[in-house]
Each structure stands twice: as C-alpha cells, then as structure tokens.
C-alpha cells in the first residue's frame, strides 16, 4: 500500500479555501514571518495574525505570562502594531501563497467595525476573525462573547462592515456555548472559532500576589483541550456554519479529535512556542492518519464522532 492515492486535504472554512485544515492561532504566531526559520508557511493551511486594533496598542505590564499545569496563563492584553502597520509593513513580508486571516480586537463595537472595514479589500487577506473574548468597556468589563445581545450586535455590525469571510472567535467563559454559536450563525457569521483562552488566576503563595501583573489571565495549552473539545462538539450540535477548533492542540491526533467533534479546521496555539514547526508536523500527521485509515478526504472526518445515544 505504499502507492497510496493522495489524500485530499483541502477544506472550505466559511468561504476561506484552505490547502489543509491546520491553521495557527492568533497571538501565538506573531505576524507570520517570525516562524520562517522553523517551517515553510506553505505547509500549513494558513495563519491567523495577532489581533489588531485601530491604533497600535501597548500591552499590560510584566509579568504577562506564567506557567500552569499542562498550560500557561497570559495577560498580553491588546498589544499589537495596529491595523495600518499590519497592512503596510507586516503583510508585504509574508511569502506569496500563504493564507492570511486577520484578527480584530477592540473595546467597542464601532471600533471593531472600523478595523474590519480597513482590512477589507486589502490583497492577501483571505478572511477576518473577530475576537469576542475582549472585555467590553461599556458592559463593565464583561466580555463581548459573554452576553448574547452584545455578541449579536457585534457580529451584525462586523458583518455589515466587511465582505470578507467572517469568523467569530468565541469566549469559553460562558454557560451555553451553543447559544452563543447560534447568535453568530443568526447574524451571518461565516464560521466560528473556539475556544479562546479560559479565564484563570494563578497565585504566588510566597508574595501573596497573582503571578500576572494584571491579576487574571487566560489559560491555554493542553490543559484546556478537553474543555475545548466539549465546546466544539456542543457548538457543532447547535449550528451548521463551519467551526474552527482551538485549544491545546499539539499533535495530529489532537487535530483529528477536533475534526471528529465537528471542526472543519483547527488552530494550533500555545504549542507553537514549544515546538515552532509543530503546525506543519500536525498537517503532515493528518495526512498520515488519513492514509492509515484509508480516508480519501480529510474533510470526511468532520463531525464523524460516534457520540453515544445519538
């Protein structure tokens, strides 16, 4: 069986055509070029760039990161180069043939829309992801993605602001992820990305302070994978728009789990820090998995989980 039929790895993520379903997650892959020494970006489906705000933003004071069991905490906040510098400086540096998804991140809905507008029509940007895990200043620090009404308004406004495929990245810090997914679908989102980091706190028992200068932070990495898989599965039961699965992915087996739970594509996040070529390894591993199981198209795995009693 050496001469296996080539596996079809292409997927359509809400109008974004991907070479393969392995993307990298916003905030864990910089603006793409940083990984040039470690992997050929054309080996992966594409990448989601660091979330952009209208103006360049300075982040939180250090310490911004801390380790946790099988995970890490971060409180980077809004630090980014701003939408203009991204377009004029970062995008041109990305090799041809690499699929770029831009990410938007703001403190009020109008500014979100403005970021989406500016990114629309820019060559090289294949789609937008709006990060709804940002605290909404007007709702007293509640995340946009934690309130169905606010989320609905955000998605509606962003949808009007851009003609690009629009992914909404949901917050995991909610009671009913399916409800949030339905809001996105109802307001015309092209797809859903989940999960973002889980709100968390780590404490130094010696100094009696949080390990992060900001106090709270986001937990990411393998620790959250079982939570992410549950949410992806729940969202996939609630909506029919495509889902991009995120959370602790560090191997092709992990990626397969997300596909089985209903994700059309996946994003590798924290693992990029540990092993900067990991996303390409995951993509290659998916092909090996498909060959081993005689699966002609990777997308045949999507939602193929045999869930008991269904």
């Amino acid at each position: 069986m050496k001469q296996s039929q080539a596996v079809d790895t292409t997927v359509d993520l809400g109008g974004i055509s991907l070479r393969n379903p392995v993307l990298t997650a916003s905030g864990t892959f910089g603006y793409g070029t940083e990984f040039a020494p470690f992997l050929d970006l054309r080996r992966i489906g594409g990448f989601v760039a660091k979330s952009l705000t209208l103006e360049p933003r300075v982040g939180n004071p250090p310490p911004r990161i801390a380790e946790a069991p099988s995970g890490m905490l971060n409180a980077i906040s809004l630090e980014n180069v701003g939408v203009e510098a991204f377009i004029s400086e970062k995008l041109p540096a990305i090799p041809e043939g690499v699929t770029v998804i831009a990410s938007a991140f703001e403190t009020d809905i109008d500014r979100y829309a403005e970021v989406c507008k500016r990114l629309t029509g820019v060559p090289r940007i294949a789609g937008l992801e709006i990060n709804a895990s940002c605290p909404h200043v007007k709702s007293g620090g509640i995340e946009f993605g934690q309130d169905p009404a606010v989320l609905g308004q955000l998605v509606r406004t962003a949808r009007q602001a851009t003609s690009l495929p629009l992914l909404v990245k949901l917050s995991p810090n909610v009671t009913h992820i399916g409800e949030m997914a339905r809001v996105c679908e109802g307001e015309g989102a092209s797809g859903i990305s989940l999960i973002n980091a889980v709100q968390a706190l780590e404490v130094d028992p010696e100094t009696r302070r949080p390990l992060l200068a900001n106090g709270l932070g986001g937990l990411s990495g393998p620790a959250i994978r079982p939570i992410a898989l549950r949410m992806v599965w729940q969202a996939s039961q609630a909506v029919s728009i495509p889902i991009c699965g995120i959370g602790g992915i560090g191997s092709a087996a992990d990626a397969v789990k997300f596909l089985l739970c209903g994700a059309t594509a996946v994003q590798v996040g924290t693992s990029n820090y540990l092993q900067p070529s990991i996303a390409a390894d995951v993509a290659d591993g998916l092909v090996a998995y498909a060959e081993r199981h005689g699966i002609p198209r990777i997308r045949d795995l999507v939602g193929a989980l045999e869930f008991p009693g269904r």
Partner: protein
Amino acid sequence: MAEAIWEVSAAGAVPIRAEAEVVRNVSEGPSSWRLVLRVPSWPGFRPGQFAMLSAGAQQAARRTDPLLPRPMAVYRAETGVDGAEVEILYKIAGRGTALLAEALPGQRVAIVGPLGRAFPPPRSGERVIIVAGGTGIASVYELAARLAGAHPVEILFGARTASDLMALEDFEALKIPLQVATEDGSAGVRGLVTDLLESALEASAPGSGRRIYVCGPTAMMRRCADIAAENEVPCIAALENAMACGFGVCLGCAAPLREGGYALVCRDGPAFDAASIDWERLP
C-alpha cells in the same frame, strides 16, 4: 582585531530547532550545573544570545507538564566534526531546571536557538568593565572570551557567598583582571559588586571611553545602571525576564522602557542600553 569583534546586525544566524543529545550534564558545586549538548546544524552564535531549552529531557512519551521551555544563555559552543557542542551553565531555580539537571548523557533536550540580539561590541579602544552575578555570569562568558586579548577588559563578579559563583576557573583562564565581591566575604572582598564597580570607575580615566556590561539580579543591574549614569559611562544590561517562546511572538517577555511602552527581551534584547529601561517597573 576586527575579527575578534562580532557583528550585531539584525540578521544574525538563523536559529535552528533540534532534539539535541546530552553529551555531559554535571554538577559543579552546590547549585551550578554544566550541560553540553551536541547540536548537528548549529549556526554559531554571538555573545549575549540565548536558547530555549525544554524543561527536562525529552522522554519516550510526551509529558505536557511543565509545558514551557526555559531561556538559557549560550555559554560557549565549539564546532567539531559531528556538529557543535553547545555549552549551557545553569542554576537550579525551580521545576524546569531541576528536571534539566536529571537529563542523562545520551538523552535528548529540545533546543531552539541561537535567539536574541548580541551584546553590542565595544567601540575600538573602549575600556570594558563586565559586571555579573547569579545566573548572569553564564551570559557574559562569551563576551569576555571574545574581548580577551583584543580589548582592555576587566571582570567584576558579585555573589551572596563563594559557592554561588559559577565557572570561576573558566574566567580565570581568560587571563583578564577579575575581582570578586561576596556579601559574606567568603570569596574576594566582603561587600557588593557595585562597590567594586565604583572603585573601578574611579581608578580608570575616561580616556578613549569606557563601557559597562552587566547581567545579574535586577537590583544589581539597576544599581549598575545608576552608577553608569552618574559617571556618564554607557552601560549595557542583559535582562532575564520569563519567556514562553523566545522569538518575539508571545509578547510575554516585555520589559518596560523609560520612554514608555515595552521592549521584548527576546527580540529586542536580551541586551539593552541600561538607560533605556524603566527599572522601577521591571518585575
């Protein structure tokens, strides 16, 4: 002499990622360890650069805790027939380094490097004073070695007690003037290394210029920065913030700047003009 001095151009050696074989990993005194890794396609490095090492040897089965790699200065590297032997000098500070100390010859440690910008080299004729303490001693060996014989240079080490000093013999072998200050007087003079720095600055005439390089605990670096400023001597400090990635993508290693905003220690440093750092806000 030009060959002895390195380039700091932005485009340095392209970093590599390898599962490097442990050649040697031995304890040298109470908490100081020396690790030698065989790295097949090591592209060379410049003084001040570092690498990200996995916390502990890679095992047959993947373990996800502890998760993050640890930044470590490249102490020294020797290129031979089957790749380079890359040397790391480290102290056991917590879980990651405790696990690293258990890595046995023949086992593998994941390494990503060399990373970061090199120390800016001194200007021709500049008199160099290197100040180091704690794990910072590991960060300045290559600097001292490249300057030795090529530049007027002296070294000042500070420690709480004698056994905290790492690799003293390596530095002595460089035949550079070296002074030690310990808080308990168990080696060199009793006192702080910053007192040695003040004396050294008093003793040396400004002449064709002086330059300080410092790497050590934050308090030591901050005090050196103050002394340098008072004496109007340029001072380069190598910071040791906690890191997740090591190559500028997680934005975790931010160092506050005096002018406002942050620099990334892994990308814009680890070596910085000490005057540019907002020492009060550095954790």
